[in-house]
């Protein structure tokens, strides 16, 4: 393990010790701050419930993530090929994007109901815009002279897109996709907390109502671990695919 990674582990360990110490030292009730050991114990006790909820949320997040990535990249490519459409569409896209997902979630719930469709839509919306904007920025990064050069060799717009624009845009698209991983889970959980049939957000909501704050923290711990794993996975794929960076 590198020195850097060691220090990172040390930092988190110190924090956990401090947390445990504060929670125990001040004998804080669990509705203010439960201790780390209490939370871990509760995660273990409820492992089956949490695992199925985590799977539920992850499925929503993954579905929304996939739709969002495909739509985001697709629309970005389309608009980069059709500059007049792009000029007309961009203000509307920016206006939709400027409304926080937190504001769309209530509407999506009324439209699509409390089931998984509203969660997938919310995630797709959040991921889609992030990926769309980074893909567009990536597609724009191409050196005009290189395009000119390719044109002079008789390359059409599609060929320029495939051979030049997309490869140039890939690192930015990948970073947009990486950033969106964490967002996808958070958005799924936030929307679940407003109304759902299951998932980590639903557990959090129920636990708050039933005054079970250790369970709230347990669900958050699982959510956080899940986000990190998803982030790491996409990061690893990115390093393999965009190796030349």
């Amino acid at each position, binding site marked *: 393990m590198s020195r850097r990674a060691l220090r990172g582990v040390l930092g988190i360990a110190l924090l956990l010790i401090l947390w445990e110490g504060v929670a125990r030292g001040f004998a804080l009730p669990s509705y203010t701050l439960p201790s780390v050991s209490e939370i871990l114990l509760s995660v273990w006790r409820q492992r089956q419930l949490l695992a199925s909820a985590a799977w539920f949320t992850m499925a929503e997040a993954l579905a929304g993530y996939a739709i969002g990535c495909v739509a985001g990249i697709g629309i970005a490519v389309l608009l980069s090929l059709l500059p007049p459409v792009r000029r007309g569409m961009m203000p509307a896209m920016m206006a939709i994007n400027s409304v926080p997902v937190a504001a769309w979630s209530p509407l999506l719930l009324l439209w699509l109901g*409390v089931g998984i469709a509203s969660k997938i839509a919310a995630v797709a919306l959040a991921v889609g815009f992030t990926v769309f904007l980074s893909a567009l920025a990536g597609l724009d990064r191409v050196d005009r002279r290189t395009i000119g050069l390719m044109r002079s060799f008789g390359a059409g717009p599609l060929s320029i897109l495939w051979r030049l624009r997309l490869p140039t845009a890939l690192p930015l698209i990948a970073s947009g996709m990486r950033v969106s991983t964490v967002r996808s889970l958070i958005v799924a959980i936030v929307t679940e907390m407003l109304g759902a049939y299951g998932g980590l957000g639903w557990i959090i909501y129920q636990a708050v*109502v039933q005054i079970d704050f250790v369970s709230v923290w347990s669900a958050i711990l699982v959510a956080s671990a899940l986000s990190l794993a998803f982030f790491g996975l996409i990061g690893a794929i990115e390093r393999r695919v965009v190796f030349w960076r």
Partner: protein
Amino acid sequence: MQRRHLLTAAGAAAMFPAILPRRGARAQGTTKASLRLKWLPQTQFAGFYLAKARGYYEAEGIDLTINPGGPNLLTENLVATGADTFGLSGGTDSVFAAREKNLPIVCIGVSHQQTPFVFVSRADGPIRTIQDFKGKTITTWYTGANSVLLGMLAKAGLKPGDFTMQPQQVSVTPFVDGQIDVVTATRYNEFYTLMTRMGRDKLRTFAPEEQGIVFPRDTLIVSETTARQKPELVKGFLRASMKGWREALKDQKAGVDVVMAAAPTLNRDHQEFMLVEAGKLMTAGAAARDGLFWIDQATVKSAHDFFLEHGVIKAPLDLAAAYDRSFLEAIAVADRRA
């Protein structure tokens, strides 16, 4: 996350002054206090808003701030920690849950004497009696209403596997669109939405009372510390609240106006309807004789036994400690009645 600890310290520092200076402020005649509602501003809480607007809390020496509730906020928690002085919390169910979790709160009054929600099916549909719930899809709130429903159905001879029960949130649209067969509705909120969207004659209701289950809700709570150390504050709060409610129920226009001033985007027709329904719930049962916020111990006991029987609470609770009627009893009966 380190900063969270700093915040805890800062939060604790910010929290305690909120409790401490009251003793000092008392010398000058007014005590600062706050009331945390169970939900967003609406005429379900009109009496409190009216009492504040007309200065009844001030007359009792209380400088009261009314804090709305919301999803993911738990009144019991905020009152137990001292973040809020008074709370209008979920109901007998949430008081039981809080006491079971050792949250140091005491119920000092019950607002809705009857179960405020009903189960609704389509009048022209196949569900005519409670036995017809068999094989149907029902949505309900998993915050107590689910146990009431299970209890009602058990009395009708249905087992949990005989029907599909799903959590209900946000919208009654699935019921309006016919995707589910039975929906849960508070008499003052969802039922109004259902009426306006489908018409009253299209709806058939099933009330828990018909099955002999009474489930009082909208409980007034304080922390054990407040109950012990500031009984006068609690009595003053109750007196002023009763006065506000009495006038809100008599002069409903004033009651609706004061709430609309706090939340102008609300639908006035709905709020008027809500106040009428809230008034019915508040003056029903024992409250007709013993006054507003009356704690009917027999009803509380039967709700407790019901929850115990259905495993919602694991062990019997000390009801005398959880429901303290002494503050109400200190007020003359004539002043309590609506």
